[in-house]
């Protein structure tokens, strides 16, 4: 497994080129630009990643960091006008960027599926849920109406919905949020996709339901040997359920590492700040959470140096002048970060205390 910026691809690619079989997903230098009246807005800026079959990648970042746009760009599911996609997305050896819509449509729902953030709006209110699941089956697997309806009931049972044959006749309004998200998952799993993109699938749900949905996804994944990209802003969720984590900030990958390594050895100050802003159960009560001051930068007028410099307590002169590339850690070759002065390696400048901007 290797994830790298284009500049540092050399080592990563040399290994994978020898393999006869390609990876399930190989994204190289993906860039999504929205042409807004204010100028081009680069929402995803040169992100590269790769994913093997059955693996889980967590994409973490705060609102507006480009996580959702990235997951939709991988699928090619972005609003057509005023949007430009460049780079490469190889899915099972097939290039998706610039592919004709008919090819994408044959892959969407059948081989790559998506679970959306808000189960309240992602089901069509006017159709019975059984029919909504059956639609996908009939479209891609060309099942007969009767067989599709029966499969829909089986799928509902698989995602843990009681009395599935009765439930299939319900409209979305008649179900609770957690139930609706189960239905969304059933739709996504219907055709047995190889890759599941879960875009903050638990954000709109009760905390008690979140764990159930996560367990359900994990179970489905292991049963089907399906790869999954899990987009979230909650580090706690990805910590136990992913193989690899990518931290995004202002459209770029700022730290990528296998989950264990990331939590054992945080290098990028932004990741550290994210971790500190998560409440911990061991903390004494009334412990103040450390919020990250300021806001993410304007993506139309990107700052010259590191995008996080203005909010980073360790920022130096160099950080504001030059953008750091994503480089591999000297000790851990799988651990990548984009930072001039990473945490864990005391630099002379840092020893002096570092000028805090915040």
């Amino acid at each position, binding site marked *: 497994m290797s994830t790298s910026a284009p500049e540092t691809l050399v080592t990563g690619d040399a290994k994978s080129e020898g393999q006869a079989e390609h990876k399930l997903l190989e994204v190289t230098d993906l860039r999504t630009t929205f042409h807004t009246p204010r100028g081009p807005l680069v929402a995803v800026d040169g992100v590269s990643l790769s994913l093997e079959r059955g693996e889980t990648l967590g994409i973490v970042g705060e609102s507006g960091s480009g996580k959702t746009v990235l997951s939709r760009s991988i699928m090619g599911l972005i609003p057509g006008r005023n949007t430009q996609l460049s780079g490469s997305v190889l899915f099972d050896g097939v290039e998706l960027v610039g592919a004709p819509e008919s090819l994408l449509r044959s892959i969407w729902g059948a081989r790559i599926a998506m679970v959306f953030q808000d189960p309240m709006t992602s089901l069509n209110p006017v159709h019975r849920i059984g029919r909504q699941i059956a639609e996908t089956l009939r479209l891609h697997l060309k099942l007969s109406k009767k067989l599709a309806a029966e499969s829909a009931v089986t799928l509902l*049972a698989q995602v843990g919905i009681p009395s599935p044959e009765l439930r299939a006749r319900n409209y979305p309004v008649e*179900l609770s949020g957690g139930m609706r998200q189960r239905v969304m998952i059933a739709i996504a799993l219907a055709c047995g996709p190889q890759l599941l993109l879960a875009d903050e699938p638990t954000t709109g749900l009760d905390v008690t339901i979140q764990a159930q949905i996560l367990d359900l996804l994990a179970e489905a994944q292991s049963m089907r040997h399906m790869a999954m990209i899990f987009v979230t802003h909650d580090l706690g969720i990805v910590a136990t359920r992913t193989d690899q984590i990518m931290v995004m900030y202002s459209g770029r990958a700022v730290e990528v590492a296998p989950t264990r390594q990331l939590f054992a050895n945080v290098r990028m100050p932004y990741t550290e700040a994210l971790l500190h802003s998560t409440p911990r159960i061991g903390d004494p009560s009334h412990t103040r959470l450390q919020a990250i001051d300021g806001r993410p930068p304007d993506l139309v007028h990107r700052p010259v140096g590191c995008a996080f410099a203005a909010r980073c307590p360790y920022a130096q002169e160099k950080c504001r002048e030059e953008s750091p590339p994503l480089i591999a850690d000297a000790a851990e070759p799988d651990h990548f970060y984009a930072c001039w002065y990473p945490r864990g390696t005391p630099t002379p400048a840092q020893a002096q205390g570092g000028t805090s901007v915040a």
Partner: protein
Amino acid sequence: MLNVDPVVSDGEVAVAAAGEQLEILEAPKRPLGFFFWCCVGWMFILAIVTIFASFLPIKPVGTFYYNVGRDATPSFAHLLGTDELTRDVLSRLIYGGRVSLVIGLAGTAIGIGFGGVLGMMSAYVRGKFDAALSFAMYVVLAFPAIIAVICLLEFWGRSEWHIIVILGLFSVPFIFRVVRASTLACATKEYVTAARSQGATTGRVLAKDIFPNVIPSLIAYTVFTFGGIITTEGALGFLGLSVPTPEPSWGTMIGEASGDVTVTLAYVLAPAIALFLTLVALNYAGEQIRLRFDTSEQKL
């Protein structure tokens, strides 16, 4: 399987009988009510009577009954009396209803057809096409419709088909606006993106995901337009600008009889009441049907 979150929703009752499996009853359908069926009944009677007018045991519509006299009061032979030209009011009422309803139906069909298709396209395609079309519709809306209709009819000639086309086209902007707004509202919803992410084509998304969501407001507006066209035709008839004489329409009849209401009370009231009942029936029944198909949250 995984544990299950409790199912609680207002529309249904979960009954757990001892030792039996959990049974979920279907949500009870919203009752339509007695008045709804009265409205449907009235529309049904109206449809039957006007369609089969020539088979009904009523007096022929073009005949003059000089022996009965002008403005005769209702009698057994002439249930609603006669008009100032000694024609039978009941048969004119029925044949007039035929004209009014045909103009209403055909005009609405034109309005729904053009307004609906253009509205959905406009909202889904967006961009310059939408801007140009919306502007054109606002221009038509800004026109004082009744004056424009009068001018066009004078210029083009008064015939049933001209009235249908003109009134139909003038109802397009209203339907266009409503359909465009509802399409816009649901084209940005996540379930449209979700449908696309499942591999649905644009046509499929429009037909299966967006159109069913537009139907409730379309029904409401169809009924509204239908009523509006009948009323406008009535206004034209009252001004003597509807279908040329001697063909009756409800508006024309009210207009003709309005000269001396003290003498021609039955003659004025009959078409006015028919028009009133029809509009009430249409609006009430339309609203009930819209509510019946409304699967949004407000129902709960």
